[in-house]
């Protein structure tokens, strides 16, 4: 890939920069200049605004890659997933930091920033999003509900058993 072509794509690869139709609210990734959902496509021209995805999502399908594309040989076997985002778009991305055999449909993930490939030993290094399993520490404070009231000190927790 040419340096210029990758550079043009950095907003979406680095920051999941998509677009949103201000007419109907549909979110697109990669970004679109025209909204195909709107009945009159022409009306949406210049009504599309940049929109950054949160990076959270759920695996709706996946495959385990054993015969890798050039540049990914060191990582086989690895999981490549289709991730449905809460904003709407479905993204394709590698799922890292997990044993591939434990990836499952329904797995909650979040975007992480990784090296995608290198153009040989002297070429540029391409970076972008991959997905990593989402645990509690990855949930954005804004996405959390109000804090649950702390349980009373004497209340028996589920892990406590009387002996």
């Amino acid at each position, binding site marked *: 890939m040419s340096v210029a072509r990758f550079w043009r794509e*950095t907003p979406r690869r*680095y*920051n999941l920069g998509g677009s949103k139709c201000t007419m109907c609210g549909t979110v697109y990734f990669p970004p679109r200049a025209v909204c195909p959902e709107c009945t009159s496509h022409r009306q949406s021209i210049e009504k599309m605004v940049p929109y*950054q995805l949160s990076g959270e999502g759920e695996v709706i399908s996946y495959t385990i890659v054993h015969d890798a594309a050039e540049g990914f040989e*060191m*990582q086989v076997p690895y999981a490549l997933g289709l991730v449905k985002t809460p904003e709407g778009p479905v993204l394709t991305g590698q799922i*890292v*930091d997990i044993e591939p055999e434990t990836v499952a449909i329904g797995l909650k993930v979040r975007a*992480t*920033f*990784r*090296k*995608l490939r290198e153009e040989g*030993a002297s070429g540029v*290094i391409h*970076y972008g999003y*991959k997905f990593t399993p989402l645990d*509690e*520490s*990855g*949930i*954005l*404070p804004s996405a*959390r509900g109000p804090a649950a009231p702390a349980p009373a000190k004497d209340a028996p927790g589920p892990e406590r058993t009387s002996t």
Partner: protein
Amino acid sequence: MEAGIVSYGAYVPRHRITPTEIGRVWGVDGEAMGLGLNVRRKSVPAPDEDTITISTEALRTALVRGAIDPQQIGALYVGSESHPYAVKPSATVVAQAVGATPNLTAADFEFACKAGTAAIQTCLGLVGAGMIRYGVAIGADTSQGAPGDALEYSASAGGAAFVIGKERVICRVERTTSYTTDTPDFWRREGQRYPSHGGRFTGEPAYFRHVTECAHRIMEASGTTPKDYQHVVFHQPNGKFPQRVGKQLGFTDPQMRYGLVTPAIGNTYSAAALIGLANVLDHAHPGERILMVGYGSGAGSDAFDLETTDAIASFEKGYGRPVEYYLENGVELSYAMYAKFRGKIHMGGE
């Protein structure tokens, strides 16, 4: 000083290798080596991780925790001795990846293991002078020791990012002092894959002299003694040096408890003292005093006299993993997998 730490985040890759496993390959008693260095495991970056990705993860955590608008960052510095490019800044990629471009100044720092603390000092100056609102200082590395070399048992990967500002400061910087000399204890020449070092020369005339001199100078200037600090963090090339220098200076094990992280993750170089500080802040309550003394070969020390504020009590620690998670978790690798991950296997060509 008006400027202080507003937010922070740390990141350590998922994989680990033990000194026992490394020693098995080189015909050395790795267990004894690990005990001697006080290193139980060291972190290993995945093939798709480097200083830039580690820095980005750490900074993204810090920005969410501090609810900081990346467009308000006026300076971003990445301190490392393993920048992926010899020419082309790591800082520009990180700045773009967190949405901080284009209205900021950015640069890469290198000073062996203390480039991250040097970046903090630079940010303190810029924020203090009113030139910028927030400054970001990152220390991150994916360091390598030559196969079989003593360094291979400790050189690891990790990063920590600190946001420096004047508003909502969670940890005040009362003072910072440095001690710098030309001391060739450890180096890597241009184009060389692995660093070289002066063996035992890295000890007394290098690490111990600079750390103790710098610690004495800052405590003298602040009018403090070791008893005045709840926590102390030293640069930690292994688990032994910081323990010994702490004892020499008169600090106790409880003061070093949270600041010493190398035994569980190895020497993260530019991130070592900073991940130690992040762990201290993870546990600290308001009004606790912290002494941090970094060290970089070549050689110099940066010391910081710090005190947590009331704001740390309400600081958002729930987002991003606490340092303790990285100390306790990890997936162990065989030496063969480690060699593959770190590019130590010759694949032919070139």
